[in-house]
């Protein structure tokens, strides 16, 4: 799910960086100091979240938990994703520095889509709304990644294979996020979820 350096052209990487920078500034606007602990906790979860992996069809796919970030942080999730992607590069050499913007954009859009979907489907209850948010976030994230592959002149078959290979992960990520949010509710930690509503 992370593009490495050397696969996409400089203009495409630059465009990704520009859009990500704008969205990161928007996400960080009027950030208060008391939001930092929550932000760092969720960023830590994203940082290690990509270590869930599933070998599949000759390649390997993994969870990102960006939908969870969207549910818990709202628009701040884009800032959280930007930091997590940078840390994943620094600590795991996961992705690349030149394509940090593109990788942030793929996952950040997924997180924002998750936040939107969670608000939209909140009426379904805390069992199905997180699942829907996780599912939508994963679809947007994988769709953005596949779109970038197409823009980078990869064959359409490669983009389609990425979508197919991530199909089970999309479903599982929705399930995982549903379980996590239900678990938080059961642990009477619903304040974590509700606190994201005003952001």
């Amino acid at each position, binding site marked *: *799910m*992370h*593009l*490495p*350096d*050397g*696969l996409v052209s400089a203009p495409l990487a630059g465009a990704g960086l520009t859009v990500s920078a704008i969205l990161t500034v928007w996400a960080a606007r009027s950030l208060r*100091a*008391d939001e*930092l*602990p*929550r*932000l*760092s*906790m969720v*960023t*830590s*979860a994203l*940082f*290690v*979240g*990509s*270590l*869930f*992996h599933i*070998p599949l*069809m*000759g*390649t*390997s796919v*993994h*969870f990102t*938990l960006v939908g*969870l970030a969207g549910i*818990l942080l709202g628009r701040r999730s884009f800032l959280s994703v930007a*930091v997590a992607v940078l*840390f*994943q590069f*620094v*600590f*795991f*050499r*996961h992705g690349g520095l030149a394509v940090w913007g593109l990788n942030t954009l793929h996952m950040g859009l997924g997180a924002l889509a998750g936040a939107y979907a969670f608000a939209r489907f909140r009426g379904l209850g805390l069992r199905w709304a997180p699942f829907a948010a996780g599912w939508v976030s994963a679809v947007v994230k994988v769709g953005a*990644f596949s779109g970038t*592959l197409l823009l980078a002149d*990869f*064959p359409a078959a*490669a983009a389609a*294979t*990425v979508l197919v*290979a991530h199909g089970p992960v999309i479903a599982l990520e929705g399930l995982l996020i549903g379980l*996590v949010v239900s*678990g*938080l509710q059961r*642990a*009477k*930690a619903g*304040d*974590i979820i509700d*606190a994201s509503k005003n952001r």
Partner: protein
Amino acid sequence: MPVKIGSLCVIVLLSLVSLPGQAHRMLLQQEGEKICAVYDDGTTASLARLYAYNASDVLVDQGFSDEAGCWVLSDDAAVYVVATDGLGHRAVLELGTETGEINRWVRSVVGVFVLLGLGFGLPRVLSRRSRLSAGGKDG
């Protein structure tokens, strides 16, 4: 603070459960004449296409990995090999070099500590500074 620290810990603990797994990146390993492409979670990259280049960056050999993710390099002039699986993973190996990496567990823990340190430490530093500057104005 509106949110309980203890309940926030649930999120990180749930994620730390996954630490025995490993991060996801394609790597190339040299085993004699064989070049093997693997993902760093241990999965073999059986769909990889490998390209060998000489010192002048001229392509001298290419091929596909087998089921074990390996490919036999047949050109002695090659100095580095690039692998791609066509799905967004890419790796480069300079032949004859060995890469030593710090344990992934250690890196994960250090990364989490840095993030949490920033998240919990910065607000304290900022509030201390604002208290000091307020005290300075009063004095």
